[in-house]
């Protein structure tokens, strides 16, 4: 259980400022404003036990209020603290009670920030203070043996170098790092400016001659101290750096905690300076002390202003880089994909593998794809980015339709520009639009337009009266019994013609023709063209016939080809009411149809079918059909076709049971899509053709033309046209050039409010740049 994260609350009030670990790594000292305690790290369960409380009394002596604590690196019983009043104390744990405070040095004038023991000379310790000095103490003397003047207002941290026994580094609030020889107090060995802000902490790398500094500028800098200090790495953290500590055994890892804002402890890989390798987010206040447990690379002990101590197990650390989204992707306007992908690095190919892969080049990729573990490759954080472009000239696939269907934006833009929505006869509009859609490979849309043409293109159909149907059901039934089940569209339509004409008693050509057709139908072979294959008579052009398979035609809408057995309920219950009810309500009927269709005859059906009872004919309902087709078209994402059909249908759209909210939704969508392709004119045309108030209003929003009188400069707001109420004149309506009243296009300068005929002004400004009336420098271009 040693590798578990353990925490302990150390006191009720007063937060910890520092933490130190003894030589044997089995005890820690925690120091704070009113706190100085020792805890043993239990060897069996890894938890903490309080060993000693050196501030049990109500002693308010400031000498006890510690900023820092240090443990002798040689003697487990010797401890030193740096107090806020500048006192540096040395403690001997082998003594009892007050005797523990062995020595009290009063040398510093101001707060002592830091204290540390020499690594080999057990009597020596140094401290840094707000008074700008570093003092060296010998436990055998009761006064400082040496003073180092840093020439700055405050020394924040001092650390002995593990690489040369008498060298120590000192960092100060003016952003400089100094290197001192313990034996020479007159002059520092080296001094350089490391940060532009105060440096609060430094730490020597245990094996390399590297010094890490942490500053208020939120950066940790790694300095190579061989010879002249050179900056090797800069880590950008998210908050002011309070402490840094190199991770043992891991050359590139360093732990840091912040002085403010950020309560977490982050472990960084200095080679990847932007994102922590790992984070411990347990503390609920600022972390003030961190220490690695000896050479145990997976155990970090920390204390915080939240008055707790934590022993963090590395496996419990959060790994922000692993959680971060490693990819980015976005789709462009032309169907192109931008894709950024985190690179996965592979182990270098060994010699043996090279030989192998040379002999078989194709194996190269496979042999190389032995990826490193996540930890090993952490520091190589990099993405590559690429774009997938739709290739117009691609010939690798036989089917050209694939490229067409992926070129959706081209279809959209083309259709938006070329589709005719109004201003012609519906039949012509449909013909034109069908050919446009075919040009762009939108076969379903083509079918739809063709269908609309047949269903609504002729005037007779527009007058369809559905209430007449009932009375003729018998007649229909008798006819229906002789029809193939594939009977669709035109047949039914013609049939409806018949009805109408019969009812109206009109004896015209259409009726005659229809009766002829019927006759031919009954006679079979002669009327071949009236039951063409698949029942897809609506496909007037043979080309489409070949392009549209039965399958997708069938899917165009469940009801397009009605092949199931007659649906009594539908035939009898006249759809008069459903016409205007909600689309949703009509859905169940569709499903019935769908089920029926699936039960259509097996392949080895007898050619003749005996009809035992006369089935009622299915009532084919064009309005419902077209509605469903439009809804389907929308649900698969083609609002353009659906809305265009709806607009082009003009008054006929009233027959379609589509509720207004949905239509408005379509309008908004289509207009938004046009805007995305910056097709303002097309969007405007659609808005103008709308019959919905809320949509039409879009064109009246957000553009206001403010007019001023050119003579007095007052706004013309309240008046009509160009009449100025103050000047009581209409002079503004006249052209500045020719003096005549402008009808049609009027251009004017927004600076001086003068203008006139567009043509005149264009001619005038070709040679002049000043206003013809007032000499204002109009910026005409």
């Amino acid at each position, binding site marked *: 259980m040693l590798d578990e994260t353990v925490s302990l609350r150390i006191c009720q009030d007063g937060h910890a400022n520092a933490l130190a670990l003894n030589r044997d790594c089995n005890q820690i000292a925690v120091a704070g404003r009113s706190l100085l305690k020792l805890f043993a790290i239990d060897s069996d369960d890894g938890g903490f036990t309080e060993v000693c409380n050196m501030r049990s009394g109500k002693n308010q002596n400031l000498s006890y209020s510690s900023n820092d604590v240090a443990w002798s690196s040689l003697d487990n019983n010797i401890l030193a603290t740096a107090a806020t009043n500048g006192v540096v104390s040395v403690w001997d744990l082998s003594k009892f009670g007050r005797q523990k405070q062995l020595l009290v040095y009063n040398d510093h004038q101001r707060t002592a920030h830091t204290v540390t023991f020499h690594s080999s000379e057990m009597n020596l310790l140094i401290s840094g203070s707000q008074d700008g000095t570093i003092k060296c103490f010998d436990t055998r003397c009761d006064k400082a043996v040496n003073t180092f003047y840093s020439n700055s207002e405050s020394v924040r941290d001092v650390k002995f170098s593990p690489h040369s026994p008498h060298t120590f580094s000192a960092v100060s609030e003016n952003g400089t790092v100094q290197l001192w020889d313990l034996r020479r107090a007159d002059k520092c060995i080296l001094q350089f400016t490391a940060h532009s802000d105060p440096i609060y902490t430094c730490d020597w790398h245990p094996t390399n001659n590297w010094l890490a500094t942490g500053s208020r500028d939120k950066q940790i800098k790694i300095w190579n101290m061989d010879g002249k200090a050179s900056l090797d790495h800069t880590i950008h953290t998210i908050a002011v750096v309070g402490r840094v500590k190199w991770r043992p055994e891991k050359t590139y890892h360093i732990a840091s905690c912040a002085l403010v804002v950020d309560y977490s402890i982050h472990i960084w890989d200095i080679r990847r300076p932007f994102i922590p390798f790992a984070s411990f987010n347990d503390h609920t206040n600022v972390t003030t002390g961190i220490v690695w447990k000896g050479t145990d690379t997976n155990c970090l002990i920390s204390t915080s202003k939240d008055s707790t101590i934590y022993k963090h197990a590395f496996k419990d650390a959060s790994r922000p880089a692993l959680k971060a989204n490693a990819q980015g992707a976005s789709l462009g306007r032309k169907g192109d994909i931008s894709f*950024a992908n985190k690179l996965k690095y592979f182990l270098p190919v060994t010699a043996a593998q090279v030989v192998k892969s040379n002999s078989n080049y194709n194996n190269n990729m496979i042999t190389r794809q032995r990826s490193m573990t996540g930890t090993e490759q952490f520091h190589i954080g990099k993405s590559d980015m690429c774009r997938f472009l739709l290739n117009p000239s691609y010939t690798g696939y036989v089917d050209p339709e694939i490229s067409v269907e992926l070129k959706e934006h081209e279809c959209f833009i083309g259709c938006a520009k070329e589709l005719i929505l109004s201003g012609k006869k519906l039949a012509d509009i449909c013909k034109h639009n069908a050919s446009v859609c075919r040009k762009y490979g939108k076969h379903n849309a083509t079918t739809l337009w063709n269908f609309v043409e047949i269903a609504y293109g002729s005037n007779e159909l527009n007058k369809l009266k559905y209430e007449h149907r009932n009375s003729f059901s018998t007649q229909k039934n008798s006819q229906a019994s002789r029809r*193939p089940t594939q009977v669709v569209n035109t047949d039914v339509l013609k049939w409806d013609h018949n009805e109408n004409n019969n009812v109206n008693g009109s004896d015209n050509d259409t009726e005659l023709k229809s009766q002829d057709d019927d006759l031919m139908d009954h006679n079979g072979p002669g009327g071949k063209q009236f039951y063409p294959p698949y029942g897809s008579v609506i496909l007037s052009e043979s080309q489409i016939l070949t392009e549209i398979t039965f399958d997708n035609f069938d899917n165009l809408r469940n009801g397009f080809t009605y092949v199931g057995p007659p649906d009594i309920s539908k035939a009898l219950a006249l759809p008069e009411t459903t016409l205007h009810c909600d689309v949703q309500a009509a859905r169940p009927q569709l499903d019935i149809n769908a089920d029926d269709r699936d039960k259509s005859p097996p392949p080895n059906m007898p050619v003749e079918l005996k009809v035992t009872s006369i089935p009622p004919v299915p009532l084919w309902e064009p309005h419902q059909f077209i509605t469903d087709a439009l809804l389907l078209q929308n649900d698969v994402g083609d609002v353009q076709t659906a809305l265009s059909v709806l607009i082009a249908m003009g008054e006929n759209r009233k027959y379609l049971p589509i509720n207004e909210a949905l239509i408005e939704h379509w309008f908004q969508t289509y207009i938004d899509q046009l805007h995305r392709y910056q097709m303002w004119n097309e969007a405007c045309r659609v808005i103008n053709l709308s019959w919905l108030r809320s949509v039409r209003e879009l064109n009246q929003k957000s553009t206001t033309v403010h007019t001023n009188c050119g003579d007095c400069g007052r706004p013309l707001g309240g008046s009509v046209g160009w009449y100025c109420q103050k000047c009581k004149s209409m002079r503004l309506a006249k052209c500045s050039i020719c003096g005549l009243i402008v009808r049609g296009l009027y251009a004017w300068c927004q600076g001086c409010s003068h203008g006139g005929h567009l043509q005149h002004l264009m001619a005038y400004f070709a040679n002049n740049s000043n206003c013809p009336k007032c000499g204002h420098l109009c910026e005409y271009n």
Partner: protein
Amino acid sequence: MFEVESIIVDHKDVIHDVVFDYYGRRMATCSSDQTVKIWDENEQGEWAVTSSWKAHSGSIWRVSWAHPEFGQVLATCSFDRTASVWEEVLGEKVGGTMTPARRWVKRTILVDSRTSVTDVEFAPKYLGLLLATASADGVIRIYEAPDIMNLSQWSVQHEITNKLPLSCLSWNTSMYMLSSQLLAAGSDETATATGKVFIFAYSENARKCVKVDTINDITDPVTDLAFAPNAGRSFHMLAVASKDLYIVNIRGTSDATGTSKLDIQTVKHTDHNCPVWRVCWNMFATMLISTGDDGCVRIWRMNYSKKWKCAAELKADGSGPSYEPTLNSPSLPSSAATTAKYYKKGIISNPNQVPWH
């Protein structure tokens, strides 16, 4: 089908997000190297960085474009626990060139979160200038700029705390058949097997934002989610990237008493066989792309039976972008296929002897 063109980026760390603007004419990338880059397309169709700046003091997770009506405005969110709003300003015309210098100015910094801000997104235009942030401590914050001309004034409108950490969020793009604006958020928490996608309803009039639903079908950690752009459909679609790709259809319904409800259907697509990192829709919501941990981009399309099918699989390293057709020609249930066959045979073999029923 697709040509792969690699782009040289000098981001010094992993790129976490790539986003086209509303028109698809500009591109923003953000990276762990704490910089944001803006890309513009030149006349030759090449993309080049036109702006690059250090935007945060931590990894930048995501970037979001505001609707162009509000100007050239970006929002970024970062590991440094902040989200920022940036605006492009045109400087003086430099030298002899007629193109003025472009510069991105930090308009505001939103510092309310105590943990990493994992996602930021501007709300649809009709809600005004509104943005939502999600953070790793499970808080969703909705900020509003009451004056759209003043991008430096943002106030927290709502703060909703969830138990689970949040990794992503997405605004719905329309309110068709819904009583309030929807907002979805996903959690990447791995420890519990509870639903990881939450639906919130934001009501501008009632000044409320409450959790209305949890999609319990998705229990794996969610890395990304995206509502499909408004495409005139009668239902709303939400793509969710998790261990697999999910496509969620949400339909607004109202019962007899008039209270509105959400009818949610979740479909799981297992084609990736690896965790999915990102999902992205095209402008028409007819195409969805999802990116997997294996570095493959998959293209999904809906067929006429309203089913989503993986249509293509693209690899950046050029090892054979493959494409399987059958998009618009829908896959049919077998029964229908046999039906079709039956008719074809009968007719083609002998058109004059069509069986009568």
